[in-house]
């Protein structure tokens, strides 16, 4: 019940401050810009290259969703710490875990609304181009999952310090790490350890990064014939169940991270 109350509060606040509409607009505009320039570069407006368009859309979401999740949640707890509201709410019949989970579910819901609003016109355009409704629906579900994971990271960082500068820098670093640095490190190890480490281990390492899971699943959906080869590693053997299981593990990790903090603080 308390989780619901906190979630409701977050939802009401974010609707009031127009975050939902602003981020929906960002999703919509940036996606259409990518689509427009993709077609301009190919020089052929009559026949869109679905493969490269899909990859662009997937990668754009991979950058935008974590980034906007951080923007939404990085000061969610920090600002309440600064204003004294967190201490006040903790003096009520509400636990720290209620606050964490309420904010996580509330912010994830807000993000879902924002993403659905912003991505709907894009999805309609992709549907017209021939991408099936089921594929688009699954892609939206995976995007919501990714935002949930990164919202939990952002809330964790937001709670970790009272220093706003530190929180912003750490958020930027975490975003960079999962989106760029992890890729670079992964590629480095894949080349450096080529022959000494099994392909299974390397493909398993992909699942340590939720953004990579998002990319892998999305490619599975949009361009299944490309999914056999990612980073030069054969990932075609990975079953849907394996992928769903890894998504579930990340989901549970996001929640248990807060349970752990709560138990430690208690």
């Amino acid at each position, binding site marked *: 019940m308390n989780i619901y*109350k906190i979630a409701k509060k977050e939802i009401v606040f974010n609707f009031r401050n127009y975050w939902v509409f602003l981020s929906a607009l960002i999703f919509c505009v940036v996606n259409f810009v990518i689509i427009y320039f993709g077609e301009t570069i190919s020089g052929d407006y009559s026949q869109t290259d679905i493969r490269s368009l899909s990859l662009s859309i997937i990668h754009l979401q991979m950058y935008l969703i974590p980034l906007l999740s951080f923007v939404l949640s990085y000061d969610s707890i920090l600002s309440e710490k600064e*204003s*004294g509201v967190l201490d006040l709410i903790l003096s009520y019949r509400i*636990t720290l875990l209620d606050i964490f989970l309420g904010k996580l579910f509330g912010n994830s819901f807000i993000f879902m609304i924002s993403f659905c609003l912003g991505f709907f016109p894009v999805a309609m355009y992709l549907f017209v181009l021939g991408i099936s409704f089921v594929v688009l629906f699954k892609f939206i579900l995976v995007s919501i999952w990714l935002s949930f994971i990164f919202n939990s990271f952002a809330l964790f960082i937001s709670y970790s310090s009272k220093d706003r500068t530190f929180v912003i820098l750490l958020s930027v670093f975490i975003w960079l790490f999962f989106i760029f640095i992890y890729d670079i490190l992964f590629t480095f190890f894949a080349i450096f350890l080529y022959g000494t480490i099994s392909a299974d281990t390397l493909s398993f390492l992909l699942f340590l990064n939720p953004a990579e899971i998002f990319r892998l699943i999305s490619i599975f959906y949009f361009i299944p014939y490309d999914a056999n080869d990612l980073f030069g590693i054969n990932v075609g053997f990975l079953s849907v169940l394996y992928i769903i299981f890894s998504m579930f593990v990340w989901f549970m990790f996001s929640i248990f991270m807060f349970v752990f903090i709560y138990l430690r603080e208690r």
Partner: protein
Amino acid sequence: MVKVDCLELKNIDFFYKKNNFILKNLSVKFFGGKITALLGINGSGKTTLFKILTGIYKPGSGFFSYNDKLISSDNILFYKSLLGFMPEYLQLYKNMYVKDVLRLLGDLKGYKNFDLDGILDTVFLLEHSNKKVKALSKGMKQRLNLAQAIIGDPKIILFDEPSNGFDCGSITMFYGILRRIVSKGSIVLLSSHHLTEIYGNVDKVLILSDGCIIKEINIDFFDNNDDFLCKEIFILLNDVIKYDIFLFLKKKFLGIKIKDGNILFGRVNNKIIVDLILEIIKLNLNIKDIRIENKILEDTLVNLS
């Protein structure tokens, strides 16, 4: 016999770093139906004690109990349901309307259908209920802070430096509300570093210094103790006083001094103040101005701390 509620702290220790104690072996009892003031200079541990009493901090050692029931992590939520807390610093959601903020906080506190208008009226904010929080003055924001603390008629109510930002009228209103709360048997604890302000408004004073309660004083003590009744008086006369008249006054009223030839000043009790003024009138000296300051109570607090 009616049982009085009691909140007891026993051997409470609290430290941020090892050997850097904020509270040291603190034991104290707070009773229902009484307003208790916790006095101490900045850094004496008042806010930390409040955070322990609100369940935000856990003491390093020791325990606290309510009506002989030990408060632990198992029943802390029940204890919190009896609690009202007004933090020292609180910036409520500035883009929300006053009535919406209070409704939201009431909901979070577990009171969905409380008398919103009644509470706003109590703190004189009813006419401002449709304003955004950011449009309120500092004193009004503090009154809103007070309003959330009294939602649900709490059995234990804690005010951390409540009068910061209050004007004279708000202070009178605040202590009026406190009297109403304690008349229902609630435990009221407030912290302050202004002895003068709480004098006459509370029933008991605890002086906290370096994490320990160094003195417990019932308010009657102030009334029966000449040292506490002393005030700083300044009497400005129209004309310069003749030296022999000053010697006469000095002999009769010990502690009286002279400045610039026409200002009599000193630390004296209430009776001497009256007698001195009467004597000046009797001597046909014209009084231009009288100023009485109650700073001695503050000095006493500093000395005790």
